[in-house]
């Protein structure tokens, strides 16, 4: 099945979505910042500075940036293991992210969690999860609590294509549909769960059509087109916030790096990776739109790109200068 495509000229869409020049610039910079974070993470790993694992989201940046732009900063986020992009989009302190990645006491989780478990409760970012599908049912409780507390935020639950085959995914969709909870489900379909292509693990595609069984409206979109993400998620968020119940969005995208630190990409071809990189890259597509439509001059975008590099470099400096946790504190935080 083809994703929903939008043929409308870029500028018309940007105008219809009320995206100001400043917002477009800011989003471009965030896309670049996420990409730079992932490239740096890969580099630090190669240099032997990371003890642990990581799941990089290079290639999937538009989903994170689009969701963030189309929802409120105080909406709740439930994240999965490939979560760096969503954190950065939600205005995370990149120094604290990098410090967590390097396992430092100054990190978001005081070095206890690492890349796979970054969380920032003060910004309604309820954390990443190492258990595939583990966070999905939390959205039910967040939705219920928001209703009980009579608040108008929504819960955004992010997960991958692979997670949609865990039992809790189906249980959660059923309860969310039944109780009309304020949840935006976003399935980031990057074509593979580890080595398994979606076609090899799903009885019927797209994944989003599963929502129909639970009376939840769904969309299957091109997740590498930033404006499409913004448009779909924006209207979904309005619908949810107005009390109509959950919406399911499946965003088609692609991950460039291997699944985690060790992956020889035996399950996909170099050609496939190159094609996505060269012809469907979310940052390149957005950049080309901005340049072709003369929203910005090339030099203006270069400034954004350089800023992104600087942000990441100084985050590494901060993280490397930070201390390891003290071994004597290993038993802290087991109980509140």
């Amino acid at each position, binding site marked *: 099945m083809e994703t929903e495509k939008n043929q409308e000229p870029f500028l018309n869409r940007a105008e219809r979505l009320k995206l100001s020049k400043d917002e477009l610039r800011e989003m471009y910079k965030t896309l670049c910042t996420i990409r730079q974070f992932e490239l740096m993470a890969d580099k630090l790993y190669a240099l032997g500075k990371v003890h642990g694992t990581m799941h990089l989201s290079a290639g999937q940046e538009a989903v994170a940036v689009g969701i963030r732009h189309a929802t409120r900063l105080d909406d709740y986020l439930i994240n999965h293991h490939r979560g760096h992009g969503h954190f950065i989009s939600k205005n995370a302190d990149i120094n604290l992210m990098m410090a967590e990645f390097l*396992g430092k006491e100054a990190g978001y989780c005081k070095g206890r969690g690492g890349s796979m478990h970054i969380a920032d409760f003060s910004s309604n970012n309820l954390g990443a999860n190492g258990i595939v599908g583990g966070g999905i049912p939390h959205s039910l409780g967040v939705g219920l609590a928001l209703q009980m507390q009579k608040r108008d935020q929504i819960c955004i639950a992010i997960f991958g294509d*692979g997670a949609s085959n865990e039992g809790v995914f189906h249980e959660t969709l059923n309860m969310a549909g039944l109780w009309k909870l304020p949840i935006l489900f976003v399935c980031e379909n990057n074509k593979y769960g580890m080595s398994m292509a979606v076609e090899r693990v*799903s009885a019927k595609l797209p994944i989003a059509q599963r929502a129909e069984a639970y009376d939840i409206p769904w969309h299957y979109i091109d997740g590498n087109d930033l404006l499409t993400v913004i448009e779909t998620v924006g209207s979904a968020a309005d619908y949810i916030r107005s009390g109509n119940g959950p919406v399911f969005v499946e965003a088609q995208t692609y991950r460039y790096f291997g699944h985690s630190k060790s992956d020889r990409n035996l399950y996909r071809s170099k050609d496939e990776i190159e094609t996505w990189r060269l012809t469907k890259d979310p940052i390149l597509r957005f950049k080309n739109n901005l340049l072709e439509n003369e929203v910005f001059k090339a030099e203006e975008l270069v400034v954004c790109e350089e800023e992104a590099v600087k942000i990441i470099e100084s985050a590494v400096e901060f993280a490397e200068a930070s201390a390891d946790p003290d071994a004597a504190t290993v038993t802290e935080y087991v109980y509140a």
Partner: protein
Amino acid sequence: MPEITYAEAIRSALWEEMKRDERVFIIGEDIGRYGGAFGVTTGMLDEFGDKRIIETPISEPSIIGAAVGAALLGMRPVAEIMFMDFVLLSLDQIGNQAAKMHYMFGGKATVPLVVRMPSGSGTGAAAQHSQSLETLLMHLPGLKVVTPSTPYEAKGLLRTAIHDLNPVCFIEHKLLYKTKGEVPEGDYQIPFGVADIKRAGKDLTIVANGIMVHKALAVANRLADEGIDVEIIDPRTLVPLDTEAIINSVSKTGKLLIVHEACETAGWAGEIMAVVSSSRAFDYLDAPMRRLTGKNVPIPYNRVLERAAVPQEEDIEREIRAIVKGVY
């Protein structure tokens, strides 16, 4: 005897059993082209095809459930759970279903299945990918629990597991996969419930499993130069447990230290102490029994903390000295 790695030993047991018995098949996540998260099943898809190397969606309860169903029909499934931590997702199928069927159905059903699962910390994989949950499984009557410490044992015990008519939890420590050891060519099995004396000694008994066997051995060999003679018992299977071997050893040395990576509270060290204190070995004890275990914490990400969370060689050495000197 050729030296092979722990991972290769497991693969060769699987390989030979699949050649020997058409009923044996493997089911799990990313076990084909990818070869499993730790490469154990590398090359098996090409040899045996996708009808016997069955790659599943990410659905742990149903992986074990499917294995249970196939076992009931006389097949010999070997299920792979990518990290032992994910056993918590399948616990109903393992604990309420597989473990209980033989008893609950009056001995009329058999569930001959093996669940392989990598355990342990040391890779920086943090709280949800580093646990040692063997005690949890030991507490469920009907399950057998195996924790091989060397390539030789991994192969011999896995073959026995596949032949066994009961559900067997086969726990592989992930830091052991690349360790090498001698493995005989050809057929051999290691019976369940028979401990191995990894080092004979007269001053103190250490009972340790998995990776802790190696740490204890390294320390014992160092302390031998100082005249402290440690005996190391590797139970190899925690269920069934070779209580005689432990009782005999403690009766000889009069001192006991149990070392495991799993958390302390309700960990299996307590079980060993109970066995010893209610046996004839109790009369021979001339020091309090001690345990050195993982701390009661989720495994942290940071390397310094991760090390501090589980017993290291220096901790073992400190404990041995304390027991021998009688100062704690």
